[in-house]
């Protein structure tokens, strides 16, 4: 079983006419994993999901579910179920009938259907709503019905197409945790499509960041956030400072990069990102990884504080490092703001651990 993946995409491409929606992607989704396809609209994430579901047939490549090549197997013969963004509940059926639909199609005995539908509705806390019609329920409740309707069939893989997209922020946050909890309880592989980077980071075991039909980076939330490989990923996930410079010296994976010929900063190059002395590179560093120190401090890089924005939990500083380069620094407001150490115009020192600054591959 070691080599069998829940879902495997090998060289998958999908063309609509001349438009390349998905361009030669390779993914291996492990059994029991919560896997997210993350990207802006039009990046091919939904097309990818629809190919796994069987609503679209790949133009090229091999798609396998638990080792079985799917080819053009129709959706109703695949061991997967989908939770649609619009929920797609059948408006002419009650909640109970909606949830029972899949089991009826599988010709499960009536008694077992009643029991499993009851359990499924119990799990999403809607047992009292079995005889209601979908339009009598709120958006959040409909979303949970859609989930129950899919999970009651015990699919091998559950596909979710932005299932929380239509909910308001507070409900969405609550449902994120609930979904993750549910996934861990049932142990089913979840493939989750979202454009919300925070949602992906919160819920996923692994994430594939997509753009224009390509997978830009695949990894755990920590890898994606801490070690972005490309400017696109670093920019799409959270906030990032980009510093352009030239490599001055290399010591193992420690690299010193000179910015504007004025300041030399420390950064890390991953093993598969080759760098040579004199090469032009981009250093990515998250605002919260930088600490702001008084101007008379010995360590760090000198700069001038040019902007200070209070945003509740944090304060956002902009520090001019050279004539052309500035960085954003974020610090939590641990001390009351009245006792603020820094003011705009101050000479400051900024400091970061070399491991926090990543040389981008592109």
């Amino acid at each position: 079983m070691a080599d069998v993946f829940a879902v495997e995409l090998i060289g998958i491409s999908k063309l609509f006419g001349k438009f390349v929606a998905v361009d030669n992607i390779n993914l291996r989704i492990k059994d029991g994993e919560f896997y997210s396809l993350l990207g802006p609209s039009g990046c091919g994430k939904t097309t990818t999901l629809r190919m796994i579901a069987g609503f679209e047939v790949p133009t090229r490549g091999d798609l396998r579910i638990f080792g079985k090549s799917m080819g053009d197997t129709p959706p109703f013969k695949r061991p997967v179920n989908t939770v649609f963004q619009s929920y797609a509940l059948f408006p002419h059926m009650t909640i109970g009938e909606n949830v029972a639909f899949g089991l009826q199609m599988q010709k499960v005995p009536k008694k077992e259907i009643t029991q499993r539908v009851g359990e499924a509705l119990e799990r999403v806390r809607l047992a009292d709503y079995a005889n209601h019609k979908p339009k009598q329920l709120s958006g959040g409740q409909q979303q949970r019905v859609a989930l129950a309707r899919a999970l009651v069939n015990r699919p091998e893989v559950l596909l979710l197409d932005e299932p929380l997209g239509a909910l308001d922020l507070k409900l969405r946050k609550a449902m994120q945790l609930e979904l993750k909890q549910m996934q861990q309880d049932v142990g089913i592989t979840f493939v989750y499509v979202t454009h919300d980077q925070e949602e992906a980071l919160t819920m996923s075991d692994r994430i594939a960041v997509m753009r224009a039909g390509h997978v830009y980076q695949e990894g755990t939330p920590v890898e994606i956030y801490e070690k972005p490989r490309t400017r696109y990923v670093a920019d799409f996930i959270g906030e990032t400072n980009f510093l352009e410079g030239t490599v001055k010296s290399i010591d193992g994976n420690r690299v010193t990069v000179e910015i504007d010929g004025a300041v030399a900063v420390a950064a890390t190059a991953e093993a598969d990102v080759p760098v040579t002395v004199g090469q032009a590179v981009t250093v990515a560093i998250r605002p919260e990884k930088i600490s702001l120190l008084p101007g008379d401090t010995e360590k760090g890089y000198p700069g001038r504080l040019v902007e200070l924005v209070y945003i509740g939990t944090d304060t956002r500083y902009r520090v001019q490092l050279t004539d052309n380069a500035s960085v954003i620094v974020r610090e939590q407001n641990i001390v009351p703001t009245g006792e603020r150490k820094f003011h705009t115009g101050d000479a400051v020192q900024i400091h970061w651990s070399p491991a926090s600054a990543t040389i981008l591959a592109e």
Partner: protein
Amino acid sequence: MVTPSLHTGSRALLKKIGNFTLSGYAILFFLFLYVPIIILIVFSFNDSKSVFVWQGFTLKWYARVFQDARLLLALRNTLIISVASTVISTIFGTMISVAMERWDFRLKLPFDALLFLPIVIPDISMGVMLLAFFGLIGMAQGLGTVVIAHVAFNISFVAVIVRARMASLDPRLEEAAQDLGANEWQTFWRVIFPLLLPGIMGGALTAFTLSMDDYVITFFTSGNESLLSLYIYSLVKTGVKPNINALSSLMILVSMGLVLLSLILQRKGGGDNVGLM
């Protein structure tokens, strides 16, 4: 200060005149439409041979309608034709609607235009056309040819009505059904058909009404068969008698009832917000 107030005063007056004219027009419009119908119905209860002089209340013209053997035969034939053409055109019209909404094929646009042609073609042309066609293929005129002729125009009406309903269905619902293990057949009967039903019923009732009172196309294709609309016309040729009033009143009642039912069914379906859940 005098001029602006005079100005606003004249504006208000204009508006008043406008409102008055508009409501007057609306009243005239409805009078124009419904006074003849009301007269028809009132005089169908008139106890007199003369159509235009009120003599007292009677139901004898209604009784006479149901004693007229030729009329009953015509009614029977008309019902056979209406039911047959309604059933056939509803089935095919629905199939066409589903196909046109869900599949793309070459020549879809011209096909679309051709499909709706019978709605705009003058009845008289259609009648002549069908007459020539049946003559050409050597098909004897009778109930069969009338049914075919009625199906030919009813399909378009059914297709238009059902298609409007089909277009409002979220295609995700069909995908959801297939995702849950339903094949195409099960998806149609369990999901598409129940959601289309109000539209299908509306289409069928419209087809039935159109078939019931069609005169022109029926005239060209019925040969010697006795049919309701033709029979009424033949009665009028010998002068309007009160029993025609009675019969016409009954037909208006049935037609209105059917149209009302079809509207209610379509309205009921429309309010469902199909697929937007």
